[in-house]
C-alpha cells in the first residue's frame, strides 16, 4: 500500500470510530445567537452614529450644548423606537411601594381600552397544521399542551403559531387548537386560563412588541389580548397573577381580574439580556428570572421586585428556570452540551448539577420538567433524545432512567401529575416509567 492510500485508510479508520451526537439543537442555538448578535449590531450602529453626529454638532454649533446633550442621552437604546409606538398610558406609583420598587401602570380607559376582546374561535380537536413543528410540551390538568410553530416563525421569528391541547386519554379529536397567533409562542397554564406571549423568540431578542393573550384552557378560544410594553419571551401564570419576562430583563405582573393593571419590575442592575424564563415560587413570595446577559438566575422579592440574590450560570445561553418548594432548577447550555443545575431556594446556592451522562444520554438536547406535590416532594425529569431520567426534587439524586418510545429528534416530552408523555403528529403517547419515578 502506498503512503497516500495508507494515510487515507488511517484517517478514515480514525474518523469512522467517531459517531457524532445529534447536532440540531446546537446548530439551532448557534443560529439564534448569530441572529441576536446581528440584531444588536443593527441597534448599536445607528445609536453610535447618532452619538457621533451629536458630538460633531456640539463642536460645530456653539451654544446648543445643553439641548443636544439631552437629545443624545435619549438616543442609545435600540428598542426606544419600538417602545415609542405604544399608546401612552398614565402611570401612578403606589405610596406603599418602597423606592426603588415596582411601578403600577393603569391603561387608559380600563381593560376595554388596552385589551382586545377575543372573537377568534379555536378549532375542535388537536390538529397540527401542515408543515408546523411541535415545540416543548407540558402536561397539566389531564391535558398535554404544546405549541405548533410554522417554519417562517422558526426561521425568521415572524410567522404564525398555535397552541394545541391533547387529552391525556382519548382521541385527539377531543382536544383543541387555538387560532393562529404571531409566533413563536411561550405559554403557561394557571391563574384561571392559559396565558400566551406572542413573538417569544427563544435565545434571541426581538424588536416587535409582544402581546399577552388569554386562552380558555379547554377550548383554547381566545378570551382577550393585552399589549405589552416591549418584546417578551416568557410567561408564568402562578400565585393568582401572570408574570411576563421581557427581552429587556424587566418583568411585568398582570392581575387576571384586572388585566389592564401592570406592575413592572425593572431589569436587574448590570443585566442587559432577556428574561428568558420566569417562575414564581410555590408560596408566591419569590420570583425567579433566567436572564441571558450575563447568563444568571435572579431571585426577586415578588411583592417589591427587589433583587435578593443572583447566581451566575457557566454557559452561553439558558432555557428555563423552574422554582419548586425545595429548590430552583435552571436548564442551560454549557457550550456543546446542556445541563440542569439545582440551587437552594432563597439563597441560590448550587447543590446539584445534572447532565445527560447521569442517565446514559447525550447532553446535547436536554429537556426538563418538575412534578411536585403540595408537601414539597416530587420528581425532576430530565430527558435527551432517546432516554430520560427522574431525580429526587429535594436532593437532586438520580433515581432511575427509562427509554423514550419515539426517538425522532426533538420529539417533545411532557411530564406532569398524570405521567410522562411524548408528542407526535398522531397525538400524545404515554411513556412507561419506572415505579420509583412515580411521585407517591
Amino acid at each position: 500500500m502506498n503512503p497516500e492510500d495508507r494515510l487515507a485508510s488511517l484517517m478514515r479508520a480514525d474518523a469512522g470510530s467517531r459517531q457524532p451526537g445529534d447536532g440540531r439543537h446546537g446548530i439551532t442555538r448557534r443560529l439564534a445567537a448569530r441572529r441576536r448578535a446581528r440584531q444588536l449590531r443593527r441597534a448599536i450602529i445607528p445609536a453610535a452614529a447618532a452619538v457621533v453626529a451629536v458630538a460633531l454638532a456640539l463642536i460645530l454649533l456653539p451654544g446648543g450644548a445643553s439641548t443636544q446633550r439631552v437629545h443624545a442621552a435619549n438616543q442609545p437604546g435600540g428598542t426606544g423606537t419600538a417602545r415609542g409606538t405604544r399608546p401612552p398610558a398614565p402611570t401612578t406609583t403606589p405610596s406603599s411601594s418602597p423606592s426603588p420598587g415596582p411601578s403600577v401602570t393603569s391603561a387608559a380607559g380600563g381593560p376595554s381600552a388596552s385589551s382586545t376582546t377575543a372573537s377568534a374561535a379555536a378549532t375542535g380537536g388537536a390538529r397540527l397544521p401542515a408543515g408546523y413543528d411541535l415545540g416543548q410540551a407540558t402536561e397539566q390538568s389531564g391535558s398535554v399542551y404544546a405549541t405548533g410553530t410554522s417554519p417562517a416563525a422558526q426561521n425568521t421569528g415572524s410567522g404564525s403559531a398555535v397552541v394545541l391541547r391533547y387529552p391525556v386519554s382519548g382521541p385527539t379529536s377531543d382536544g383543541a387548537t387555538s387560532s393562529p397567533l404571531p409566533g413563536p409562542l411561550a405559554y403557561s397554564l394557571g391563574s384561571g386560563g392559559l396565558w400566551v406571549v406572542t413573538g417569544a423568540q427563544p435565545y434571541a431578542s426581538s424588536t416587535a412588541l409582544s402581546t399577552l393573550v388569554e386562552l380558555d384552557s379547554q377550548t383554547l378560544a381566545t378570551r382577550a389580548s393585552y399589549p405589552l410594553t416591549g418584546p417578551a419571551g416568557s410567561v408564568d401564570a402562578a400565585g393568582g397573577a401572570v408574570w411576563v419576562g421581557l427581552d429587556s430583563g424587566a418583568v411585568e405582573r398582570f392581575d387576571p381580574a384586572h388585566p389592564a393593571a401592570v406592575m413592572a419590575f425593572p431589569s436587574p442592575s448590570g443585566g442587559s439580556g432577556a428574561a428568558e424564563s420566569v417562575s414564581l415560587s410555590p408560596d408566591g413570595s419569590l420570583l425567579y428570572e433566567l436572564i441571558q446577559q450575563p447568563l444568571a438566575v435572579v431571585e426577586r422579592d415578588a411583592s417589591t421586585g427587589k433583587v435578593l440574590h443572583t447566581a451566575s450560570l457557566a454557559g452561553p445561553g439558558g432555557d428555563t428556570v423552574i422554582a419548586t418548594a425545595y429548590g430552583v432548577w435552571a436548564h442551560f447550555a454549557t457550550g456543546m452540551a446542556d445541563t440542569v443545575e439545582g440551587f437552594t431556594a432563597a439563597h441560590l446556592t448550587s447543590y446539584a448539577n445534572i447532565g445527560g451522562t447521569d442517565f446514559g444520554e447525550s447532553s446535547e438536547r436536554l429537556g426538563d420538567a418538575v412534578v411536585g406535590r403540595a408537601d414539597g416532594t416530587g420528581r425532576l425529569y430530565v430527558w435527551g433524545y432517546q432516554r430520560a431520567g427522574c431525580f429526587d426534587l429535594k436532593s437532586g439524586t438520580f433515581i432511575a432512567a427509562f427509554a423514550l418510545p419515539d426517538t425522532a429528534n426533538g420529539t417533545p416530552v411532557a411530564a406532569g401529575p398524570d405521567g410522562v408523555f411524548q408528542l407526535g403528529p398522531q397525538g400524545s403517547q404515554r411513556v412507561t416509567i419506572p415505579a420509583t419515578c412515580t411521585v407517591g
Partner: protein
Amino acid sequence: MSEPSKAVPPFPAAGVGGPDWEPLYRSHYAGSVRLAGLLTGDYHHGEEIAQDAFARLLEAGARVENPAAYLRATVVNLSRSRLRRLVLARRRPDPASPDSPGADEGIEAAAAAGAIRAALRRLPTRQREALVLRFYGDLSLAEVASTMGVSEGAVKTHLHRGLAALAPQLEALR
C-alpha cells in the same frame, strides 16, 4: 404549580429560503464533524465547528449555490481559527506562525487523539489541511485548492511536504 414553557426552535424546516436542510444535515453533519476533528485533532472541537458551520450556512440560506462546498470551506476556516485561538490562548512569549512546524504542539495536551491525529497535529496547518482534504475528503486538487484558497501548485507542494513529513509515522503505524 404552574410550569412555564417555551417553544424550543426545531431544526429549520425544508424549503424555507434555502436548500432542504434535513437531507443536507443528514448527509453532511457527521462528515463535517470528522473533517473538523481531523483538522483540529479533537472531535469535540469538531462538533462545535460543524454546528457553527451549519448555523452559518442556515443564515446564508438561499445565497449559497453549493451548500456542500460552502460547508467544507467554512469547516476548514473555522478549524484554522480554532487552532490559532488555542495557540494564542497558551500565551506563548513568541508564538510561531500557524504555518510553522510545531505551531500546534500546544493543543496536544488538550486532546486525547488517535495516533494518526497526533501525527497530523505535528504538521503545519496548510500541510494538514491539504492532506486531510485530499486523502480523507477525497477531493480533487482543484477542489482542495478552492477550499483552501490557494493555487493547485501550492496544494501539490503542501501534499508533497506533508507526506514526506508523515512518512516515518506512516511506517511506524503499519
